[in-house]
């Protein structure tokens, strides 16, 4: 007797006990597998959201920091930069940036609750596309450019004609740095799909519009305020709060923050 049944024609079979035991073990294994697969699936979903937000966060903050570093506290074309406004309501000088503020779901007792900020920055020009801002070194009102791409900058017609446009640029009195009138704005807008998107607008969208991040709950910019305990002069603190819910209902929240010194502040 070895636990299996020998039938009349000599073929081996299973006893009822073996069948029940085998079925029970398989059922337990199947239950464990389903439960483990469900957990892994939830884990993967939240991991994917976390990774996506992390990627968005790094890309957005890197881009904002790069623009802030190149910018400065200046008056260009009669407007004072950088200009920060709340809830999509700028003052009259920047009225073209008015927009409907993206919806927020944070409660008053949560860290990501508060006004939604937008910022408008002035940017140095790069008319010849060589990756370097233009400077009017000889102070004759025409910056030295490399329009013909020969690697040598000058204000000769071969280098400047067709690309230098004094109507749309301001040359700084002190540093002679050339500032473009195409300003750069960061704001959070609601997409047609109902998601909050952090967008970068060049010339209020006419010069380009790029979505940097999704699931943005709040965007804040803090600039130096005399007499208040804020950031030091010449710097801007930026903070992006993210909030996303997985299909299984798990709420994921995180934030990124950086303090940046604006490098081109000297006139």
């Amino acid at each position, binding site marked *: 007797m*070895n*636990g*299996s049944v020998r039938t009349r024609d000599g073929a081996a079979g299973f006893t009822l006990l*073996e069948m029940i*035991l*085998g079925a029970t*073990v398989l059922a337990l*294994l199947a239950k464990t*597998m389903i439960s*483990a697969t469900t957990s*892994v699936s939830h*884990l993967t979903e939240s*991991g994917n959201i976390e*990774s996506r937000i*992390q990627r968005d966060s*790094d890309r957005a*903050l890197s881009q904002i*920091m790069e623009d802030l570093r190149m910018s400065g506290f200046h008056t260009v074309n009669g407007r004072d930069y950088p200009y920060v406004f709340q809830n999509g309501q700028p003052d009259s000088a920047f009225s073209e940036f008015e927009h409907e503020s993206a919806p927020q779901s944070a409660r008053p007792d949560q860290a990501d609750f508060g006004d939604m900020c937008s910022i408008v920055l002035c940017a140095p020009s790069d008319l010849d596309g060589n990756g370097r801002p233009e400077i009017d070194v000889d102070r004759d009102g025409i910056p030295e450019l490399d329009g013909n791409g020969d690697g040598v900058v000058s204000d000769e017609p071969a280098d400047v004609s067709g690309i230098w446009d004094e109507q749309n640029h301001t040359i700084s009195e002190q540093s002679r740095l050339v500032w473009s009138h195409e300003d750069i704005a960061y704001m959070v807008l609601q997409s047609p799909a109902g998601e909050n998107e952090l967008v970068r607008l060049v010339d209020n969208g006419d010069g380009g519009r790029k979505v940097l991040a999704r699931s943005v709950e709040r965007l804040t910019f803090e600039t130096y305020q005399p007499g208040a305990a804020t950031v*030091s002069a*010449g*710097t801007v603190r930026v903070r992006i709060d993210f909030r996303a819910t997985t299909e299984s209902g798990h709420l994921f929240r*995180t*934030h*990124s*923050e*950086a*303090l*940046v*010194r604006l490098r081109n502040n000297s006139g």
Partner: protein
Amino acid sequence: MIELLVAITVLLISLAAAFGSQVASFGVIDSSRDSTLAMTELERCMEEVLTKSSDNIPVDYPEGQPIPGYEGSRLREQSIATRFPGYSGSGAIPDPLEVVLEATWLDSRRRPQRLTLTTQVAR
């Protein structure tokens, strides 16, 4: 009965191996993500430290003290502190000043991890 028990044992061993490798891969992914996050945090922190002049950095960010705003913000028990090799904390501040930022945190198994970022600041 023996055949059944052997089959179940083999099945369990193979399942345990499969799950084990999955858990190990999650660990590797976690560790890689933590290192990337830590480097991002170090870069942001360095950007903030460099908003000060080299004379003020050791005063505003004392050696060994966790820098406010970077404690536990993105990693488990995360902390970022400064070190200034070549500067004892008293006397003249060297020019250039070497600034080391050291991030410490705990990984998913609560093992301590660290990563450093170094730069030099001229007066």
